[in-house]
């Protein structure tokens, strides 16, 4: 068996383990599914009249507009949950056993990230299904839905990289758990929940430069109006930027973890 095939097997096995782990522990799955679904329902019901505001982009309904925001919220929380689970593995010594095994170190991190990406994909499918059940249309049709799913999964992998880096560096689940409020801050300071032009300063200006806003718009566009090359490209560039950041931080944190044991 080639080296690459062996690494792929490790990634698949660890990815499957991380997905199973998430679904077995309510404290890991509920932030990905329960909270964003609850918030989607409440925000759609509570702020739905916002579509009547002058300047709101043309949408079929506020639910249709909000789907991308909920996917982003679930994706970010999947990254955070993945980081927490990774830190728990470090605390319990499971990662040490993996480090001692004859497998490439990058496959250990990639296995965790593969699981996070799969959870991101699950979140995208979950919210698209909820949208369709409650009458939202996907303007971009099947290709648009597939693009939204692919971007959400890729974004989960990217954000998961940062979560994994912090888990490796700190080796503490509570430190990674402490990032939860930061996830909320990044979400609120983006165009995830409302059009950026209608947000109040200084949130509006920050949202303009927040990379998450580019990803949200890339996911939202196929849902509310159809596939748009510019928005898609901007989202891909933002995701790549976060991937690079996550890779750099993860490799440095991995070296640190191997040094300190």
């Amino acid at each position, binding site marked *: 068996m080639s080296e690459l095939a062996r690494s792929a097997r490790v990634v698949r096995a660890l990815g499957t383990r991380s997905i199973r782990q998430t679904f077995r*522990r*309510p*404290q890991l799955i*509920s*932030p990905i599914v*329960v*909270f964003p679904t*609850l918030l989607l329902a*409440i*925000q*759609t*019901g*509570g*702020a*739905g*009249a*916002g579509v*009547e*505001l002058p300047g709101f982009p043309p949408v079929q309904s*506020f639910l249709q507009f909000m789907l991308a925001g909920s996917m982003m919220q679930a994706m970010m929380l999947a990254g955070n949950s993945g980081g927490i689970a990774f830190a728990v593995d470090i605390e319990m010594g499971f990662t040490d056993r993996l480090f001692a095994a004859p497998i490439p170190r990058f496959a250990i991190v990639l296995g965790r990230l593969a699981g996070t990406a799969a959870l991101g994909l699950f979140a995208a499918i979950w919210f698209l299904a909820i949208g369709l059940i409650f009458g939202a249309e996907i303007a971009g049709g099947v290709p648009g839905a597939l693009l939204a799913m692919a971007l959400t999964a890729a974004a989960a992998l990217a954000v998961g990289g940062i979560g994994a880096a912090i888990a490796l560096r700190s080796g503490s689940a509570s430190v990674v758990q*402490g990032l*939860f*409020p930061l996830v*909320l*801050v990044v*979400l*609120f*300071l983006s165009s995830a*929940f*409302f059009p950026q032009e*209608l*947000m*109040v300063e*200084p*949130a*509006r200006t920050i949202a303009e430069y927040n990379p998450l806003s580019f990803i949200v718009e890339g996911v939202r566009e196929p849902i509310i109006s159809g596939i748009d090359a510019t928005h898609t490209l901007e989202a891909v560039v933002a995701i790549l930027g976060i991937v690079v950041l996550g890779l750099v931080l993860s490799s440095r944190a991995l070296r640190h973890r191997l040094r300190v044991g």
Partner: protein
Amino acid sequence: MEAATTAAAAPTWRANLATVLALMARAKNELVRVPGAAIPGVLAPTIFFLGLNGVFGALTELQGFQTGSYESFIVPVSMLQGAGFTGAAAGVNLARDYEHGWVDRLLVSPAPRWVLLAGNVLAASLRALIPATFVLTIAFFIGAEWPGFDGLAICYLMVAATAAVAACWGSMLALRFKSQSAAPLMQAATMAKILLTPAYAPLALLQPWLEKVAKVNPVTQVVEAARQGFVGSVTWADTWPGLVALAGLLLLLGGLALREMRRTNV
């Protein structure tokens, strides 16, 4: 628990009071010894307050809003949300105490079950004042209107009682599941109860399904009572439904939590 022991020879009501105070002091000690534990309870409602204000602030331009200041409209909700989180945290702490064997020791003590529950619930009520005050200070800083002393007093009363209701709910689940894994259920249900109300916009501007839910959700009366001073004047007509709703919720959830506590075997 020393206070409770020394009070063993005192009249029953005094011994019970000493036990409640000892349990409240224990919760306070936890706050002093692990200040970081209070941070999530303070941070979450603050982030929600600032975030919602930044995101949905333009909603006040819609016809039907009682105020032009969204921060004034939303701050009582964030204070109640903080109370909900604090109450749910009391449930999580009780589950942790159960896992560590502390609840077992309490249950074999001569203190009545309702006294043990009251200590946990009243401690949550007091703790809820911390996030509420923090959020309120920030709200005033960014321009929320002064609700008047009467409006403020009613708002704080609603906050303390909401934390007690959430603590009863959390304690009931903690005693039923006997595991901290039930934490998401405690938090999600509390959050839902508070947000399935005219939290983001007045009743008339809600989507029809949420308007129907909000009308039958007793917490709507609590939100309206807490909010009245921030968006207008304080009236008895807006206050008493909130008091009745909280009394009813306390009776119901307190009764259920007590039933779980009586069912818990050592």
